[in-house]
């Protein structure tokens, strides 16, 4: 009897554990195809920062600072993960108090309803995917955006000051801008009708302007521009750019938050714009200087990726070609001629590539949604009206991130200081701040 009784108990236990699962499967909005794609996309976007951006930047600095840049990207990845878990996600995506067409505090700043990831459980969903996947997907965006800024102040910022700056910047700049653009009805720029599919304003203009402000507040590197500061290993840089290119399919096609038609078109237009912009920069340099360069073609690819980002959910293939050409040529001019003319020391051209590419992309998103085979505009919106809305979104983001970034940096400068000492800067941050060297050959 005993064995049979045990069997019965075992069977009922199996049935008991299966029952909720069966009920769940009927009620749950889960789509396994969407979920599988978003799990993949999330991993791709994380790959963009570590190792992609990390290598892209590390190759461009001098050999004495190669580790410091990799360290900053890695530390930001850890720091943003923790901040996003604690309150970042809630500031960006909690919808408490939001109402379509109403501007209130929650149009700018999400509530604390999802602080400490409250409610993000096995039974929570965002659309057709588990909310934990959505939280992680958005977390990888919150990681790469601050990490982009590293390029602007590379080779001269204190590591401690960098951590404090990034903490404040995520909570006061990134998460609120993401909230205004992406959180849905009641979000400031969402209600304006700003088109930003994967983060032209939220990620690239935001980081690019913060980078420009940071390099202006910190000041030029010692010896810039009279001393030679050649990249230490452009092999790293082109590997990094290649990883960014591949990872960007997760960034743009993943922003559909589904495995659907929009994701498919996002993948295509991303590829078209990137290839075009890589050639755009390469040929611009070839014409201006007489030779095409590795750093140029890699930079052009990144410029194209940046510019297609806001448009990737709405542009058609011909729009992508236009955006690619504009970004390749425009970012080339900004990172070479404009930078020389104005004399700011944006070490690795965060402004020239991300802000300029982001702005070109944001404006052309309006044009390419309404024409050139784009997905079309919302009912009652004219092409001119959409482009004006895009301008408004760009302008607001530039002003908001410009002012906030400036204030945060100034406060940190007064309290703990932003810059390493002149001696540390000459010695190189690898040895001065980390007691390590990148190359012991």
């Amino acid at each position: 009897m005993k064995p049979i009784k045990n069997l019965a108990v075992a069977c009922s236990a199996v049935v008991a554990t299966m029952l909720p699962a069966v009920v769940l499967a009927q009620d749950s909005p889960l789509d396994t195809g969407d979920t599988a794609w978003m799990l993949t996309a999330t991993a791709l976007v994380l790959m963009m920062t570590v190792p992609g951006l990390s290598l892209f930047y590390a190759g461009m600095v001098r050999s004495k600072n190669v580790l410091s840049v990799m360290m900053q990207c890695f530390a930001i990845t850890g720091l943003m993960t923790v901040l996003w878990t604690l309150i970042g996600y809630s500031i960006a995506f909690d919808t408490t108090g939001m109402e379509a067409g109403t501007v209130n505090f929650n149009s700018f700043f999400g509530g604390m309803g999802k602080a400490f990831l409250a409610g993000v459980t096995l039974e929570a969903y965002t659309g057709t995917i588990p909310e934990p996947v959505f939280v992680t997907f958005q977390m990888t965006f919150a990681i790469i955006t601050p990490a982009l800024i590293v390029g602007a102040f590379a080779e001269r910022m204190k590591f401690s000051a960098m951590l404090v700056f990034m903490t404040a910047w995520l909570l006061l700049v990134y998460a609120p801008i993401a909230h205004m653009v992406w959180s849905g009805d009641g979000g400031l720029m969402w209600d304006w009708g700003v088109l930003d599919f994967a983060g032209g304003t939220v990620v690239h203009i935001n980081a690019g302007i913060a980078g420009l402000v940071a390099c202006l507040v910190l000041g030029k590197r010692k010896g810039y521009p009279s001393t030679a500061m050649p990249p230490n290993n452009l092999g790293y840089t082109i590997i990094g750019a290649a990883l960014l290119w591949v990872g960007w399919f997760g960034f743009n096609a993943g922003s559909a938050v589904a495995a659907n038609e929009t994701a498919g078109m996002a993948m295509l237009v991303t590829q078209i714009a990137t290839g075009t912009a890589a050639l755009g920069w390469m040929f611009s340099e070839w014409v201006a200087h007489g030779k095409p360069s590795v750093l140029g073609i890699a930079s052009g690819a990144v410029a194209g990726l940046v510019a297609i980002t806001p448009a990737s959910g709405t542009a058609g293939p011909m729009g992508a070609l236009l955006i690619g050409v504009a970004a390749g040529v425009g970012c080339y001019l900004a990172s070479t001629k404009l930078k020389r003319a104005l004399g700011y020391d944006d070490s690795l051209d965060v402004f020239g590539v991300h802000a300029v590419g982001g702005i070109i992309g944001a404006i052309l998103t309006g044009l390419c949604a309404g024409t050139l085979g784009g997905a079309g505009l919302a009912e009652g919106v004219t092409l001119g009206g959409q482009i004006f809305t895009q301008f408004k979104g760009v302008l607001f983001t530039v002003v908001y991130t410009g002012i906030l970034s400036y204030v945060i940096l100034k406060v940190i400068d007064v309290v703990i200081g932003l810059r390493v000492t002149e001696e540390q800067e000459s010695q190189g941050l690898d040895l001065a701040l980390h007691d390590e060297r990148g190359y012991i050959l």
Partner: protein
Amino acid sequence: MKLITAIIKPFKLEDVRQALGEAGVQGLTVTEVKGFGRQKGHTELYRGAEYSVDFVPKTKIEAAVADALVEQVIEAIIGVAATGSIGDGKVFVTDLSQAVRIRTGETGDQAL
């Protein structure tokens, strides 16, 4: 004894080594060096920032030879290291007062 010091284009090293071997040189020392002569340097361009690189990579060969071999060795180097273009390098000859083979204690021409 003379010390022959030749500064040559790096890609000519293997040809020079072979020619010196055929000329009877028993050993030589090679160093990677940088410098400039009439060739001067070159410029590099990174995102519009142009840098001039004033020192050009070269290879320095040093060989100690008996007096009788000097002319032959110089001819051998010139014969293979010349490309006819600027930057082919130079050969210097200096007097060598003594040489000692550490293993055996032999001196002078015996040590070469």
